[in-house]
């Protein structure tokens, strides 16, 4: 049979499909959104687990699904510990609810923060079901055990989970701390490639993202926002806009004074009966703006200014060891370099979208948010409502990358719902998304290294200037704190006797936000590139130089060097900085490659390694430069992230991180001219496409039973420097700035 025939056969069956689709959507927000609502209670064994009389086990996913597979991975852990049959598990997306603990799906911490808790929740559910069965049989608890969705007595009697649900739900919660957990050899699902629960729906379009929510009577809103941070609306043409087809209301949104926080930007909203009319109606607004103080911000000149500052003189010392100036004075070879990186935008495929409906004394929000609890808080504050009266439903997220950690778009929807008295959906256009992002910060770094007679690193001086994220929450904040410097710049793991790390001030002129792997992006680019420069100056193979400079196996502690290393919020006792594991990913990765072997002219290998989000990653790339064209031919990634729940999703995150890193290295740049973002859509803010994807993308996971560490972000930072280092190996040309398409066609 041909595809064409199959398509035709499908065509014949389409009437029914279409009709059921209509029923589904017509019954919103009830049934079609049922999958993302908290389930009715009464059969609840604990906060995360309910068992229905028919045996269906409902497990709450309290983290946001934006592509990491977390809606599958954490429920997979619960199901394993409770001996549930995965085919009878239904995952229910939790509402914003402080009882769940933090729902902020960011910082690559869902598994590392909740792996143990989810095991306990599963074990607690299992214990309740076992006790219910023992009670029913008047048997000793030690004679019964849960196994594959049943509780089984030693004598062979069995009861299904569904048969025990009602009794189990009445039992007091077991003592979580005393619950026995499975031995890892008994795992049914942990460590297995379970397909994501949304796979079928994602392949048939039967999904509800933020942009897909439909509430009866809702209006669609599109907002023209201030082109410059803190700009003000002076006037706009309300009457002309109201006359546009489909437009039903035009409402000014008042911006808040700095700090920006998660407040709505100043702007004018056009509300219409459909998205197209709302977007089109904006062209009649004719807004006159007071552009404000940031209208002098020109990013090119500003980044040059930062680069001059870090190259010229000392800043505030963040960490110091030995006598760096003296050691540089004695060094046989001095290497100096300055690196700069631009602003970046997130550009998740689904732009920010939120729906608000105020009714019966509550405000319901449906949003593609990484932070339902922050959404709840700020919407409550904005509307002057009690937090409990704000009900936040988390839809699927069409990508997040940190953008959707900021609930400003839900605030917009809530404000407009209040003004109109109707349900309102705010959808950002791509232009809105690129121009009004919480931008990944620009950065300048200066490095000076001294090599001794043996080509060993004897001194490391580094200075950075980066408009900080803290400016979002504290107006005027203009220097990186230790938490931000802990993202690689301050935590360099090198066995060098003399080092000094310094920060310079850098004022923020745009909203700065976190983007997948955050400050590790610029800092690992600087560190990883400079290590390569040092290796070549020392006449050593870069791999050997990395291993030699990381030095002996040891656990690092920076406290006696004046640096408060945040270690991603975890203690060094629980998550040591282990140089053995960092060297491990380098050697394991290069052992899979023909590292050090000669390549055809114009080709080169580049390497970089970093620890971020408590995980250790090495990336190697092979590139070719031919007639001014840069092609990335192969990308290889080795990750040590401790215990792995779902290896396939970890590989997927690593594959994605390679492409994310490729995008920003090759093409990522947002410029500001007179305070306005220059780029606006994928034509001038390109991201990697399939034809730019290397033919070979290989990812490897280091087997480990160490505690689970981050997966979503750590693959990104080493990518850009590995490419820059490969370019040097291929051409002798050192690239100290991205995007690389300033130098090569890509």
């Amino acid at each position, binding site marked *: 049979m041909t595809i064409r025939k199959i398509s035709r056969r499908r065509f014949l069956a389409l009437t029914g499909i279409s009709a059921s689709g209509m029923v589904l959507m017509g019954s919103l927000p009830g049934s079609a959104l049922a999958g993302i609502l908290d389930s009715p209670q009464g059969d609840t064994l604990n906060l995360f687990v309910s068992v229905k009389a028919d045996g269906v086990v409902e497990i709450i996913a309290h983290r946001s699904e934006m592509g990491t597979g977390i809606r599958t991975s954490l429920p997979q852990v619960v199901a394993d510990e409770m001996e549930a049959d995965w085919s009878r598990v239904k995952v229910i997306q939790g509402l914003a609810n402080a009882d769940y603990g933090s729902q902020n799906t960011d910082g690559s911490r869902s598994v590392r923060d909740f792996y143990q808790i989810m095991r306990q929740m599963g074990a607690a559910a299992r214990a309740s079901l076992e006790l219910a069965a023992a009670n029913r049989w008047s048997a000793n608890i030690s004679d019964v055990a849960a196994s594959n969705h049943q509780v089984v007595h030693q004598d062979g009697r069995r009861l299904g989970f569904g048969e025990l649900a009602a009794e189990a739900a009445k039992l007091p919660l077991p003592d979580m701390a005393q619950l026995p957990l499975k031995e890892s050899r008994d795992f049914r699902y942990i460590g297995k490639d379970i397909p994501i629960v949304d796979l079928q729906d994602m392949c048939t379009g039967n999904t*509800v993202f933020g942009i897909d929510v439909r509430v009866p009577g809702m209006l669609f809103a599109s907002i023209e926002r201030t082109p410059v941070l803190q700009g003000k609306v002076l006037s706009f043409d309300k009457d002309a806009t109201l006359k546009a087809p489909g437009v039903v209301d035009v409402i000014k949104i008042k911006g808040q004074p700095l700090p920006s926080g998660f407040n709505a930007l100043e702007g004018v909203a056009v509300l219409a009966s*459909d998205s197209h009319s709302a977007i089109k109606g904006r062209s009649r607004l004719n807004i006159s703006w007071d552009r404000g103080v940031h209208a002098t911000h020109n990013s090119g000149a500003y980044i040059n200014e930062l680069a001059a500052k870090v190259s010229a003189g000392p800043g505030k010392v963040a960490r110091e060891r030995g006598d760096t100036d003296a050691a540089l004075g004695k060094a046989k070879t001095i290497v100096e370099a300055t690196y700069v990186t631009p602003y970046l935008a997130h550009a998740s495929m689904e732009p920010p979208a939120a729906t608000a409906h105020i009714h019966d004394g509550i405000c319901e929000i449906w949003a593609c948010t990484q932070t339902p609890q922050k959404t709840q808080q700020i919407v409550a504050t904005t509307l002057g409502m009690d937090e409990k009266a704000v009900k936040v439903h988390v839809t699927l997220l069409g990508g997040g990358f940190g953008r959707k950690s900021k609930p400003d778009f839900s605030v917009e929807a809530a404000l407009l719902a209040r003004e109109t008295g109707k349900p309102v959906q705010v959808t950002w256009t791509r232009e809105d998304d690129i121009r009004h992002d919480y931008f990944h910060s620009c950065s300048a770094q200066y490095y000076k290294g001294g090599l001794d007679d043996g080509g060993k690193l004897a001194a490391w001086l580094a200075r950075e200037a980066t408009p900080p994220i803290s400016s979002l929450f504290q107006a005027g904040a203009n220097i990186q704190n230790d938490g931000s410097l802990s993202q690689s710049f301050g935590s360099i793991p090198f066995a060098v006797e003399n080092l000094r790390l310094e920060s310079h001030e850098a004022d923020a002129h745009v909203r700065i936000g976190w983007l997948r792997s955050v400050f590790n992006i610029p800092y690992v680019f600087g560190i990883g590139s400079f290590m390569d420069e040092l290796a070549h100056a020392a006449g050593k193979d870069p791999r050997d130089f990395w291993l030699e400079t990381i030095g002996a196996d040891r656990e690092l502690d920076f406290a006696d060097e004046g640096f408060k290393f945040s270690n991603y919020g975890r203690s060094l006792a629980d998550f040591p900085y282990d140089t053995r594991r960092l060297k491990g990913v380098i050697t394991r990765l290069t052992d899979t490659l023909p590292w050090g072997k000669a390549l055809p002219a114009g080709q080169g290998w580049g390497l970089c390694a970093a620890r971020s989000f408590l995980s250790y990653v090495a990336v190697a790339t092979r590139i070719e430069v031919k007639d001014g064209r840069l092609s990335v031919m192969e990308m290889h990634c080795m990750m040590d992230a401790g215990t792995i729940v779902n290896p396939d999703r970890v590989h997927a995150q690593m594959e994605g991180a390679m492409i994310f890193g490729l995008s920003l290295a090759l093409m990522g740049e947002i410029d500001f001219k007179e305070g306005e973002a220059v780029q606006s859509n994928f034509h001038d803010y390109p991201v990697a496409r399939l034809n730019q994807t290397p033919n070979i993308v290989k990812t490897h996971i280091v087997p480990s039973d160490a505690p689970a560490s981050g997966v979503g972000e750590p693959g990104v930072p080493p990518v850009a420097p590995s490419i820059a280092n490969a370019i040097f190996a291929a051409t002798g040309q050192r690239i100290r700035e991205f995007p690389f398409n300033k130098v090569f066609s890509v």
Partner: protein
Amino acid sequence: MKITINGEEQELDIAPDVPLLWALRDHLQLTGTKFGCGKGLCGACTVHLNGAAVRSCQTPVSAAEGSDVLTIEGLSSDASHPVQVAWKENNVPQCGYCQSGQIMSAAALLERTPSPSDAEIDNAMSGNICRCGTYTRIRTAIKQASRQTGEEQA
């Protein structure tokens, strides 16, 4: 105007210049087709118009009058189209948002070119952006779907 969508004739009372994307999403509640850029740059809104992949955000609804439109909802009800099967077997989606468009582009490619070369896959699929970076698996899945189709033909 009358448009046949997923085999069913629909009567739409909207302005002729409304993009097909918004007609599908806002007027017919077929939200499987996604908005990504509004400029034909990302492919998230890809549907078939008389069998050819088009960007519905750049297709005025009037251009679809009297034509057959196939959306992701109509490709199959149960993900049994060879492209969907291959997508599932390779666990292609991450966030899933762009995948309707990816699948529709891939289905149109294989309908036209049952055994595409690497260059033909690159050419047909490079209009569809996936910010999660599922491209390697998309390539694998298309090749697998192509083989399956070949076996079914044999």
